C-alpha cells in the first residue's frame, strides 16, 4: 500500500474537518468527526502497536484544533486498539485484509458493521470525555447519534466517490 497516498488523504481530510465541519453549528448537536475516516481505512500492514501510535498522533493533532487535549487522543487509541479484533470478527477470509480497507474490498455488510461500530465508539468516547460528567448524558447520547450518523454518511459518500 502506498503511504504517500494515505498521508495526502489525511491532510485533505483534516483540512475539510477543520475548515468546514468544525465550523458547522447545527442545533448544537452536530459535530461530525470525519477525520477518523483515515484511521478506519488505513490498511493493516503495520504492527498493532504502530497502529495505536498513529492513532495517538492523529488524535493529538485534532485535540490541538479543539482545545481539548487528550480527548480525541484517548478515543483514537481505543479505536485503533479495537480495530484488528473487529475486522477479524466481521471479515471471513483474512486475505482481504492485506489490501486497503474500504467498501469495495470488504463488501457492504461487513464494511457498514465495521464502520458504524467504530464511529459510535469514537464519537461516544469523545463526547463523554469532553463533557466529563454524567449529568449531560442525554445531550451526549443525542450528540453521538446525530454526529455519528452524519459521519457514517460522509464516509460512505467518500467510498462511493473514490471507488470508481
Amino acid at each position, binding site marked *: 500500500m502506498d503511504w504517500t497516498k494515505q498521508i495526502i488523504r489525511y491532510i485533505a481530510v483534516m483540512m475539510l474537518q*477543520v475548515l468546514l465541519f468544525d465550523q458547522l*453549528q447545527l442545533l448544537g448537536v452536530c459535530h461530525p468527526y470525519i477525520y477518523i475516516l483515515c484511521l478506519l481505512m488505513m490498511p493493516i500492514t503495520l504492527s498493532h*502497536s504502530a497502529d*495505536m501510535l498513529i492513532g*495517538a498522533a492523529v488524535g493529538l493533532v485534532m485535540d490541538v484544533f479543539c482545545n*481539548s487535549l487528550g480527548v480525541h487522543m484517548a478515543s483514537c487509541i481505543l479505536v485503533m486498539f479495537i480495530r484488528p479484533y473487529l475486522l477479524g470478527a466481521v471479515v471471513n477470509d483474512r486475505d482481504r485484509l492485506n489490501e486497503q480497507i474500504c467498501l469495495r474490498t470488504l463488501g457492504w455488510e461487513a464494511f457498514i458493521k465495521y464502520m458504524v461500530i467504530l464511529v459510535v465508539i469514537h464519537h461516544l468516547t469523545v463526547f463523554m470525555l469532553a463533557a466529563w460528567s454524567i449529568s*449531560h448524558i442525554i445531550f451526549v447520547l443525542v450528540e453521538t447519534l446525530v454526529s455519528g450518523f452524519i459521519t457514517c454518511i460522509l464516509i460512505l459518500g467518500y467510498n462511493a466517490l473514490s471507488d470508481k
Partner: protein
Amino acid sequence: MQSLLKILLRYSNFLVFIALEVAAFLLLYYNNAYPRSSMLSTANSIVAWQNEQINEIRGYFSLRRQNEQLAAENVSLRNQICSMDSAKNASAIHYMSAKVVQMTTDRLHNYLTISLGSNDGIVRGQGVRNEEGAVGFVRTVGPNYSVVLPLINTHTHLSCRFAKNDYLGTLVWNGKDNRFGQLADVSAHMVVNPGDTIVTSGLSPVFPEGIPVGIVENSVLKEGDAYHTIQVRLFTNFKRLKYVEVVQNAHQQELEELQNGLD
C-alpha cells in the same frame, strides 16, 4: 526471567494500549487543571493563523452589522468621556482591543481565540469584555494569540452582584443555551424579580466593578430550597462576537500576591 519476557511480549499490544491511554488521560487531566502549554492549543501561531484566515473570509459577510456596532460604541465612549470621573481605581484599568479569530458556541466547553498574546502584555487570568458586557477570562497565553474561557463554558465561574442592592452571586453555565447563564448562591430570602440587572462584583481584580453581565429572565424557588434557581439572559451575544477588549488592571499582580499571601 524468560517466561516473564514471554508474557510481556505476548501482551505487548495490550501494554502499549494501556500506556498510550494513560498518557492521553494525563494530558486530559493536566490540561483541565493547569492549561499552560500554548503550543498544544489554538493559541499556537499556526493553528490561530489558519483560524484567522477563515475568520477574514467570514468577516466580509457581517461588515454592515460591525459598522453599526462600532458606531454605537463610539457614541457610548463619547458619553463616557463627558461623564469621566477621575477615581484612582478607574485609572489603574485600561483596555486593549483584540479580534476574535476563532470561537465555538455550541459545545459544553466553548473557547475563543483572540489576536493578542504575551508580546502585547496579556497574562493568564485577565478579564475579557466587549461593548455589550463581560465575555470571559484569559486561559492560555501564546506569544501572539490567547485562548479565552468565555462565560458559556461549564468550567467558568464569575462573581457577580445585583445592581439594585449589591447582593452577591456566582454566574455559572449549565451547557444548554448560549444566551443564558445561571446565577448560583443567591439565598431564598432575597427577592429576585425578572428584569433585575446583574453586574460584575469587582471583588476580584479580574473585572472592575459594574461591568454589565445580564438581566434576570426568570427565577424559581421550590419549596424547601435554600437558593434560588435564576436564569440570566446574558448581554453578550456570543454568536456574533467579533471584537473584544482585554481588561488590564495595573494593580492585578499586587492584589493577587496579597490575596495569595493570606493562604
